[in-house]
């Protein structure tokens, strides 16, 4: 185990109670250099997770609450005419930060959504012919409320693909909930959290994750999974090559968090539902497949020896 991360996980778990697995997945996603989509009900602690993550890693944090009247400029930034100088000045939007919490992303219009997603994909913003590089690291945590449909623009499947992982936080366990009700893990705890890292270290880790070894056997396993999704009746459309890369990347980050410089099938199994959950649709009715069922399906694929 990597002590450095254990400390981070411990710190965060003090604020987000009883959600260690989700915390680990979120960290994995960050260190894999991907973006995270959290899909859950309100009041579950999505925002808290994002905040504490930023704080603990010593990263700059911004939050945008998406609404239907939002324009791309509200995120990317606007040029404002300065009467004193007679020039247009670019006012950076909230996107110029290290951790961006895009709350309720499905409330924004597709135009605004795609502006954000494009910036996420490319790591830069082109505005009025000028390209501005985004921060490094740049990590977007978008949230979505799966139950609220009225007045929302659900992200299309192609856009969902830009998120490395999608996780659900879920209700806290019985004991964790008790602790929450007792006042633990409150705002106070969040403020008490100290930074364990800084942005340079995060970048360094991201580079190290790239170096995690994926052996032939491991890649065989990924291929096996991908081919399975492409041919099985369970899925409407199989996984794309990009999804395959995403699996590999996430598994490597997970392995790194475990303190290893090589990836094991176990690492892959841990991240797999989060990585492919939003990329696959049921072959029967094109609805999303519940995580549990997804895991059941993938458990049929044997690990190559």
């Amino acid at each position, binding site marked *: 185990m990597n002590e450095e991360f254990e400390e981070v996980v411990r710190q965060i778990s003090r604020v987000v109670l009883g959600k260690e697995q989700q915390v680990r997945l979120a960290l994995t996603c960050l260190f894999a250099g991907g973006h995270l989509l959290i899909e859950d009900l309100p009041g579950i602690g999505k925002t808290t997770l994002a905040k504490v993550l930023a704080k603990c890693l010593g990263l700059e944090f911004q939050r945008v609450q998406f609404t239907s009247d939002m324009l791309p400029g509200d995120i990317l930034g606007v040029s404002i005419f300065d009467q004193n100088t007679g020039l247009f000045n670019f006012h950076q939007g909230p996107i110029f930060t290290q951790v961006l919490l895009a709350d309720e992303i499905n409330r924004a219009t597709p135009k605004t959504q795609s502006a954000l997603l494009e910036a996420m994909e490319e790591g830069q913003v082109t505005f009025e012919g000028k390209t501005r590089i985004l921060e490094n690291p740049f990590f977007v945590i978008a949230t979505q409320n799966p139950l609220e449909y009225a007045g929302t623009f659900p992200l299309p499947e192609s856009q969902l693909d830009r998120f490395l992982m999608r996780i659900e936080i879920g209700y806290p366990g019985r004991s964790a909930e008790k602790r929450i009700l007792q006042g633990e893990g409150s705002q106070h705890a969040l403020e008490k959290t100290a930074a364990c890292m800084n942005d340079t270290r995060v970048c360094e880790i991201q580079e190290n994750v790239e170096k995690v070894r994926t052996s032939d056997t491991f890649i065989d396993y990924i291929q096996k999974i991908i081919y399975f999704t*492409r041919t099985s*009746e369970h899925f409407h459309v199989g996984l794309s090559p990009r999804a395959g890369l995403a699996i590999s990347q996430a598994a490597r980050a997970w392995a790194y968090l475990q303190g290893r410089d090589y990836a094991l099938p176990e690492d892959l199994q841990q991240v797999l539902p989060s990585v492919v959950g939003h990329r696959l649709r049921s072959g029967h009715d094109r609805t999303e497949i519940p995580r549990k069922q997804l895991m059941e399906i993938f458990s049929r694929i044997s690990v190559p020896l």
Partner: protein
Amino acid sequence: MLPTRYGLLFVVILTAMLAGSINYNNNLGFLLVFLLGGMAVISMLHTHRNMVGLKVLAISARPVFAGETAVFDLVVDSETVYRHALVFNLGKSGKTVEDTEPGTQTRIPVKTPALHRGILKAGPLKVSTSYPLGLFYSWSTITPELSCLVYPKPIFSRLRAEQNTGSEAEQEQGANSFHGVEDFTGLKTYQAGDPVRHISWKTYSRGQGLFTKEFAGYAGKTAIFDYDSTKGRDAETKLSHLCGQILSAAAANLEYGLRLGKTYIEPGRSHEHKHQCLKALALFGKNSGKNE
């Protein structure tokens, strides 16, 4: 790797040819005999190569109804070789001949009849080939773990409410059949309990009697199909009736549940729900609980 019967016949033919060549001391005859013999032996290697390294990556089968043909989809990885005329044999029946291309995964449907409800174990899968010359036969047998779920053979009967009606409200209405609200289908004599707003006042005003307008469309209604109250000679017939009812209900987009002995499946209308109900029917009384 064994010679086929044609391989044996070929040996006999070659022996005859060799005898002829020896007899006539004919060098050209020798040449041909050795050429053909060499080719037969070389073809053995080709046959071997046509098989070796073939990977069966996955086998899946979507559930079928009893009496239909179960299709097991094999996903086969050909590796780097173009493989010709591979014969896939599942159990005693179901033979499929396919080529597989290098570097791709080929999906091969192997059919086998599903006679009885329950779990159809995919019998030993035999992959064999006698390509290129048909003189040698190379095979390999694997016993796939996967099996195919076979739902009971559906018997469609008129969807009737005697089965059980779901919600309390429904029962209060005392509906005998599933009354819909969407499409007007006809009139029927009024029975106590029919909704007042469905009474055809027009006909009443003409003095023709009290009629209720009937509408088709079951949306929004809930039915619970119960094994114990289903008619049928034996368990299988009952299950078949239940199966037919579930299918009809699903086709009508009706919400339905299933009570099967101790098992109770909450009403629902999704595809998964249908599958769950049918699966329960398929496995009813068959080493229940183990395979679920």
